[in-house]
């Protein structure tokens, strides 16, 4: 087996951050290559480097003498115009515009769906065929049968592609892409990529936010494509999926490649476990694959430990974005003084739950009350003034305002300016990093500092309940420790906290109780301690 794509010492940094740090990877012809790593590890950046959306600052990305594209049955359309580069010696991809890279036969899908929403499914696929069809624009202006025949053949082929990814062309072909279900949209994006007739297909989180059934279909599809002779580069969070289908896996963390090899070895690699379960993981790593038999009673008792008179009460909450149902009936509660954690893989719907509590999203149905306040209808400013404060994912600090101004805005709802001022001064003593940088634009703070600023800003609104969304997201381990120390501290100061984390073990450490969320449902619940010992949790993260 010869290598198809070869990355050597590729570097790319944004500002000070090394998004991709001296990475070298080699993808073999005909394999399914997995690229994994926690959020912010630089996976998508790497894909963008390969496909020409971002230019590497150094290093080379070579496409090595591949065979001519596998011509698909039913298609007699000529090879791409840009196809010359394909056969023969290695081609340097770096610094080529995306459409040229596509011309080399490299197709991709996007982490955040990028379909042509207002076009029909078939039109999407046809657009994907762009490079494969002769430019007969002028002929098409005069629609004499001879010319139309070719057009009809194209439509026929588009229908075949839809069928191939498991979309019934008669049922979905003429539906607007935006109206398809989330899973179908993912599938459609694959079909569009296939229309290029590529020999390297890059799938960026094709299964994100899918339910198990859908995921299985995605897995089947990937394997099918691979058998048809397609080389696949698969990026995903879902270990079950990646471990299941990939022959070879590379793991990124903070832009560096920390592991590279067959699934079995990688899943045992301590560095990988650390990266995924958090720095404390080693301690527990010993009894990772459910060495202690977890007794179901433990969890069930934990479940019965639901608060009787909760400060926050959520019952059968359902939220959807258009066609995509992100939260499928979730119930839980938070009692005064607790830290409650929602854990689960990326795209499980945790953040969506928080957003629908803070009034940023409107739930589809269900109950969410905070004291007397009905969160499903109350306007956000009302919710905040009642003391339910969200510290959003990605911090959302106001980059162009100074640290101090960010804090002052944190006290927006408060009438008594003087006391607010005292608190601000207090916080800046409490968190010296903020004190020292008070007059800098918040955008210039490091990720961790921004997170602390965001939390401090939240505290200034005098929260009765603080919603923390992924506070450790994209932070270096030592920074994660600092942030969690801060969280403990403010909890000890008497703030009730609802914490959403993908860094499960860290979250479970400080949480009184926790709920494991998967694909919009609550899978498990129990005390932090109980769940930490629960192998199910490990599986949810590292796959079985």
């Amino acid at each position, binding site marked *: 087996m010869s290598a198809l794509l070869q990355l050597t010492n590729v570097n790319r940094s944004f500002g000070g951050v090394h998004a991709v740090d001296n990475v070298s990877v080699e993808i073999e012809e005909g394999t399914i290559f997995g690229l994994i790593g926690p959020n912010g590890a630089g996976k998508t950046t790497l894909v963008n480097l390969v496909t020409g959306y971002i230019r590497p600052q150094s290093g080379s990305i070579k496409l090595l003498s591949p065979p001519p594209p596998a011509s698909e049955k039913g298609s007699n359309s000529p090879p791409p115009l840009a196809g010359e580069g394909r056969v023969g010696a290695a081609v340097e991809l770096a610094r080529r515009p995306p459409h040229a890279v596509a011309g080399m036969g490299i197709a991709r899908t996007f982490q955040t769906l990028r379909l042509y929403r207002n076009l029909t499914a078939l039109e999407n696929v046809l657009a994907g065929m762009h490079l494969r069809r002769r430019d007969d624009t002028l002929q098409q202006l005069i629609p004499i049968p001879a010319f139309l025949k070719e057009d009809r053949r194209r439509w026929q082929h588009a229908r075949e592609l839809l069928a191939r990814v498991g979309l019934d062309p008669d049922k979905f072909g003429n539906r607007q892409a935006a109206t398809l279900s989330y899973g179908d949209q993912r599938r459609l994006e694959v079909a569009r990529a296939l229309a290029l007739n590529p020999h390297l297909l890059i799938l960026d989180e094709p299964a994100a936010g899918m339910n198990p059934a859908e995921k299985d279909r995605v897995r089947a599809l990937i394997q099918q494509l691979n058998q048809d002779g397609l080389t696949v580069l698969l990026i995903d969070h879902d270990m079950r999926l990646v471990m299941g289908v990939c022959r070879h896996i590379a793991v990124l963390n903070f832009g560096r490649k920390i592991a590279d090899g067959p699934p079995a070895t990688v899943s045992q690699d301590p560095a990988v476990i650390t990266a995924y379960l958090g720095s404390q993981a080693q301690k527990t790593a010993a009894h990772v694959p459910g060495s202690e038999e977890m007794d179901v009673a433990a969890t069930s008792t934990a479940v019965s430990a639901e608060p009787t008179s909760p400060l926050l009460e959520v019952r059968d909450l359902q939220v959807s974005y258009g066609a995509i149902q992100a939260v499928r009936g979730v119930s839980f509660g938070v009692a005064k003084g607790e830290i409650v954690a929602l854990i689960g893989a990326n795209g499980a719907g945790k953040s969506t739950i928080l957003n629908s509590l803070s009034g940023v999203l409107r739930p589809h149905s269900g109950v969410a009350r905070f004291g007397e306040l009905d969160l499903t209808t109350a306007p956000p400013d009302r919710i905040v003034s009642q003391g339910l404060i969200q510290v*959003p994912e990605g911090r959302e600090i106001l980059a162009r*305002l100074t640290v101090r101004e960010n804090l*002052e805005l944190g006290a927006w709802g408060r009438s008594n300016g003087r006391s607010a001022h005292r608190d601000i001064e207090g916080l800046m003593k409490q968190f010296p990093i903020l004190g020292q940088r008070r007059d800098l634009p918040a955008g210039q703070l490091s990720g961790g500092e921004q997170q602390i600023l965001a939390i401090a800003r939240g505290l200034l609104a005098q929260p009765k309940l603080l919603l923390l969304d992924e506070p450790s997201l994209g932070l270096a381990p030592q920074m994660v420790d600092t942030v969690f120390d801060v969280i403990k501290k403010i909890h000890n100061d008497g703030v009730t906290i609802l914490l959403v984390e993908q860094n499960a073990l860290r979250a479970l450490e400080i949480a009184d109780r926790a709920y494991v969320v998967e694909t919009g449902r609550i899978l498990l619940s129990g005390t932090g301690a109980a769940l930490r010992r629960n192998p199910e949790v490990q599986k949810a993260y590292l796959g079985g």
Partner: protein
Amino acid sequence: MTQQVLNAIFIGSIYALFAVGYTLVFGVLDVLNLAHSAVFMLGAVVTYSLVALHGMPFLPAAVIAILVCGLLGLLIEFVALRPLRRRNAPPISALISTIGLALIFVAIVEQATSGSLFSWLWQDGANSVRFPTGTVPNPTFHVAGLTIEGTKLGILVISVVLMLVLGYVMRFTQVGRALRAVAENRRAATLLGINVDRIFASTLFVSSALGGLAGLLFGLALSDISPYIGRDQVELKGLAVIVLGGMGSIPGAVLGGYLLGLIEVFAFVRFGSNIEAGVAFAALFLVLVLRPQGLFGARLRERL
């Protein structure tokens, strides 16, 4: 030439005053409020009608006019902008709805003649009028061959002071911070408990009040009040100004205003008058092509 520089500075301050309101709305709401020029015109017209038709002294008349314009701003928000936001319509449609409002405002004044429906507001139809002489004292000094006019001097002072005040508010007050917060990230602002809709409304109010003020000062100092002063004299130039200064940037709009004043006068003196009119737009074109974030803008934020 010195005289010309004085002229430039004066007209610059009118441009700036007009553009500040323009850019404020763009910065906070992400829409171009094309009714702004109509409000500018009404600022002058309302003051005039209070003074000339209802015999009110200038100052109270001006104050009332400014408030009226502020209220018109609210009208714009509630009629032309909010309904579209509710539907998540793209700003382009807000462009059209504000054009519609501008059309209405201008038509009402243009058609108001003595004995017509709106004669209490305006009686000179499409004609151009001026404040009765002596409405405000206007001493004119001739220093070293230079002509310096009382009113123009006053207007220069007023605009500078106002812009400093606005700058202060934006920078050092909670409301100002909230405005900037909303402009930068509506979601974050919402999570901080800022009522974004209320911020929008107040933005429109302030912006339109400023526009009205600019209008009445224009009418006062240039002895020209007509239904068209907004549309013909300042609308497109205001656009040029906020582009020069970087769209959405208030200091940019101020500097841009004076800069455009200077560019025009310079072009006029140097290349002859018939180039002057085109210059503003040539400048606008070049700035956008070479430096889309504007001459003073920091970083370009993708808009529309």
